[in-house]
């Protein structure tokens, strides 16, 4: 059952990803992107990572993509973006990236295709049982990895301040 569901959601995710590239209008691309993000969230649920699934939907599908939609609609983007993306250099780059990705996948599946629960998986199960869906992520995030977490926060803050400065400059 879970395997069947996985293939359904994986197919939707891949189809959505192709749709992002092939859609005629930017709004269509964006909706396909939402479909991809939503099916990724479903795959997270199948992996029992409920919190990640919720955050995936709330942050990416629910907030960031809405802002994208807002910007696309506000600027009323037409078809003038196409020549930016359909150059020869971009085609070449995408083929290189696809090749690298395929290489990584082949290597991963060639070496350890076994799906026995590993030590890491058992540790995750124990953490879920002890701290709950949110605590299992929050505990390591605010204890072991608190410094990288805070640095990431500062990085985002710097990005926001930078964007503000640029926006103000453009307005004058």
């Amino acid at each position: 059952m879970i395997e069947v569901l996985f293939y359904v959601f994986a197919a939707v995710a891949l189809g959505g990803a192709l749709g992002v590239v092939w859609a005629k209008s930017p709004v269509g691309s964006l909706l396909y992107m939402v479909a991809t993000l939503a099916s990724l969230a479903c795959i997270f649920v199948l992996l029992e990572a409920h919190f990640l699934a919720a955050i995936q939907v709330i942050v990416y599908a629910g907030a960031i993509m809405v802002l994208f939609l807002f910007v696309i609609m506000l600027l009323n983007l037409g078809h003038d973006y196409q020549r930016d993306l359909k150059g020869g250099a971009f085609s070449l780059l995408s083929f290189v990236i696809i090749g690298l990705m395929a290489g990584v996948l082949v290597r991963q599946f060639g070496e350890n295709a076994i799906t026995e629960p590993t030590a890491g998986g058992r540790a995750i199960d124990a953490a879920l049982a002890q701290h709950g869906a949110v605590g299992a992520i929050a505990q390591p995030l605010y204890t072991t990895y608190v410094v990288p977490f805070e640095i990431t926060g500062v990085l985002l803050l710097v990005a926001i301040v930078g964007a503000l400065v640029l926006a103000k400059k453009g307005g004058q």
Partner: protein
Amino acid sequence: MESLQPISGPWALIAMSLKVTIIFGVLVLVVAYSTLAERRVSAWIQDRRGPNRVGPFGLLQPVADGIKNLLKEETLPATASKAFFVLAPIFVLVPSLMTFAVIPIAAPLPTPAGIVDMIIADVPIGILYVLAFSSLAVYGVVLGGWASNNKYAFLGGLRASAQMVSYEVALGLSLITVLMMSGNVTLTEVVWQQQQLGMWFAFPLSLAFILFVISAFAETNRLPFDMPEAESELVTGYHTEYSAMKFSAFMISEFGHMVTASALMATLFLGGWDLPGTWDDAFWHEGQLIRGFTQDGVIVLANPAWWKTVLTFGGFAIKTSFFMLLYIWIRWTLPRFRYDQVMALGWKVMLPTALAYAMLIGGTILVLDEVGIRWGFSYGLALTAVSGVATVGFIFFLDRGRTIIGAAGQSRQKISITGISQPATAGD
């Protein structure tokens, strides 16, 4: 003899199917009748009679509306993007009817086969599930506005996206205090912690309650926040071009959001299905249904009964209806905000207040835990005092001396209009 074990095996499947069918059916029925309630209450507030022709007291009006909407012509504007135009009502309708699944509606019901929880899905992410689906609802509104290819509809869609993104921030931040108190995100645990505290979170978290109610009004696009469909400015905003069942889908989802938001406010801040006293408390703790702990931490087993389930469901229904009534009441009491006022309130008032309040409550909880006060009534009283000061300060700040101080403010205003010549009164 009734067992105190959760229901399992084939009976669990039957219980689940029944729960889904009944709760979904009741939800749709409540949504249908809240449209009638809105029209009757608005008529009552405006001293009219309202719809009272179809059936006794107009009770069959929703049926008549439904038949009318099914039989009307579906229009499709020639310049609309057809696929998105048809998809938009579906995108709005589905999330609004799905979110109710994680809200507990009554105390667990004992049956001969085991105990049935009165909640469709007690998912481990609880409230986050609600946030996730309500954040997806904006797509339908925005797409409907964009796909119609009508400038009024488009402006409505733009306003909807900006407004919902803005108020989601304040909504989430006011929720954080509730999560700090309950220690978990599942709604069953939120209800349980309110039972353990001996008071509903509306008192110890009064300011969060106010902020949450305001944000929920903005998220459901109801007056005074109905900028996306402001009739006096945008015809009817994002659903201007919609007719018949597609229009009806937008209406059903608006009322569906109202019902879910009301149930959520009742659960988070008014104890959900909890009634005063500890007789109805019940929670799954390490495989046992417990009512609480004694002073030494020994488990007291719960004693579920069918009449407790019925009574607590009644309590839940009354609390939810109260918030539904509040929605309608405010719609016919307050005028609509200006768009810049909505944005200013969201970003300059609600967001900083919610952030500061989360800090205040977090600090207070830390102090109370360090001092060693047990989680219970006195704990709640201390938080109520702190929150009360914050709430009164917030209200006076928002009021800026206009309504509450009242008379004093008026006398100051009088001085400023002395320049205008007064008509001479008779007998001077």
